[in-house]
């Protein structure tokens, strides 16, 4: 059992927590205009997690399979200082170098994997 602080769940599959994964929150504004004195006037309509790229130094073959077979939108569950969050995201990009190798235990390992995601829900 891997400590859930060291993992996230992507589309119901437990996967290593990406390197330096610190989800940022950004406030959302609408109805925005600039006054004649240069002030910005707007409605703060909520916040969302910022778009980000998940990066892994290495993933197991099962985890890699889960990522390569992701649908257009899927759920991601992770912890931050505020507790556990499940968010719907869309995939914005995927990249990995062809660095498949087998470790000492005979397991397949993939290196240098990147997955871009965009959070689609506001709070």
């Amino acid at each position, binding site marked *: 059992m891997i400590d859930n602080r060291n993992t996230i769940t992507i589309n119901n599959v437990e996967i290593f927590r990406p390197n330096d994964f610190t989800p940022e929150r950004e406030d959302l504004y*609408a*109805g925005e205009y600039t*006054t*004649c004195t240069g002030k910005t006037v707007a*409605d*703060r309509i909520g916040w969302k997690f910022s778009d980000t790229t998940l990066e892994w130094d290495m993933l197991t073959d099962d985890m890699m399979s889960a990522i390569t077979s992701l649908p257009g939108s899927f759920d991601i569950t992770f912890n931050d200082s505020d507790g556990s969050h499940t968010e719907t995201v869309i995939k914005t990009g995927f990249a990995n170098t062809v660095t498949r190798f087998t470790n000492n235990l005979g397991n397949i390992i993939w290196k240098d994997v990147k997955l871009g995601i965009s959070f689609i829900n506001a709070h």
Partner: protein
Amino acid sequence: MPTTINAQNALQIREKPMEVYISLRVGSTATISTYTVTGQTKSDDSTLGNSAWPMRTLADLQDGGFLLDGTAQWYDSTLTPSENNGKLGVRGDIGETITVTITAGSTLTAVTVASSGVSTITKGADTYTATGNDVVTINSTSATLVFTPTDSTTRVEIDYIVPGIMFNITNDTLISCTLALRGNLDVKDHTWEESEIEVKMYYPNDISSSLAYIQNDWPITYQAGYDSDLSTERKFYISEPITQEQGVITIKGVDASHLLDEKTMQEQWFSAYTGNAHQTLYTKFIDAIQAAGIKLQRKQSWSGSQSGTLRYSVLPEMSTRDFVSDVMNLTLNHTRGGSNFSIQFVDAGIPTVEHGNGKTYGQTWTIYKSDCGEWTEKYDQNISKIIDSNSERKINETITTSNVLVYDNIESGLTGNVNQFFEYNFDGWYRYASPFPASSGVPSDTPYKFTIISRQPSRLVFKVTQKGTRAFTVGGQSSAITGGVDSFSNPNKLPGINVEMEPFVYGNLTDGTDSIFNYPSLFKRSLRTGSFTWKGDPRMQPLDYINISNDTGDGRGNITARITGIELTHEEGGTSAKITWREWS
């Protein structure tokens, strides 16, 4: 502390998005006669046809248990459903599919279903993704609807299934809502325009075939603000076919004032006493609006009693919109001795008439210029003279009528049978024109009796209801026109343009010595207009007053104005408005 519109508008960045509630209810002549529920139900009652009563919150151990705040009740099958008690609706066992078969006496085009815990609603080969409030196309007298839960741990709950289409649009499904709320304070082009609403909402199921049955004039209601402080409900009416393209439904509507175009006011006498002519005009104004089919939501009273001298005018044939526009234009700046004789109609979804300074229902808003964007300001050309554009009549003529009724001048010696119609178009105008016995008859005479179908100044239509033995005649009180002027000059004697204007009526009516159709008052209208972008407030109405503060603290540069137009936009969760104004002193 509850959030209020005023509190949020005081902030440079409003901290909460405004809630927008739009409702479209399209009824159906068909009624659902039976609901047959099959499947493993946990509880149900026979209230599926009632959309008004709330669902009772039952103690339910699914989803981690029930709230201990007293809102959840134990299931009690003996508790009678009502608005206060709530109802059970239909609740399935956890993870179980529920089937409801409905039958109606005549063809149902569509039904609206409110449910929760449902992933899909299936009708025959059609599958609808459930959103909680769903329109299902039927086009039959019966249908079987299958409700599938979202997953094996969820309970299907069905609140109601009712005939017709009911959209309750909230921020969850709203893409944008734009309102164009219109007023007009232009002297020259003063036609009062209707206000409009355009709503775009996301709706995943294709219901375009059901939308085809929605006719123009069905009501759409709109409210916005915060749940503890919502604006007055505005009512609009569908004006164009509702469309659905790629999941986006577009609904367009206009306010009730669109009816002003559909009613033509016939040529008619309009008389008033010099002691209360303004009140008489106000009453006529209200009557004309109501006769066009507009149900006034707010109506200020203005009492007055007949006194002084009776004066006459003739309103030429015109649309109710022209009548309303002209009365407002000619009275809005009319003041005398500190009294204000303006008469105004504002709709924008809340049809309202008032008089005086327009502040009984109209509000005054303070707006800081430093909060405004896209500020523009301009001046209309000065009007140096208003010139009569109609060769047939002059401004402020006098109509005199003969003191004695004149008969036989029109027609005499007529006879007719029961149900026979007579129609006369006279030269000139006649008051009280009617058929009557030609002379006092002998005791054996049987009098003719008549029903007046239409009585206009120069036209009379009537029908014989009882045949008499003596010939009858048609007559009335003849009238003549004298006086009047061809133009009014601006007392400021500054250079400017001449504006041609058609005299509103034949003749003139006065209150005291003032003409109530007050052309000289038009020169009081300010030439200064402008526009700006602002935060937007769903409570604002056309013709409301705005004090635009220049933030200097000493009042210098402040502007008192009235709103001539509001384009209020709710989009992407935010609200803003473009406001046009005319200075008003």
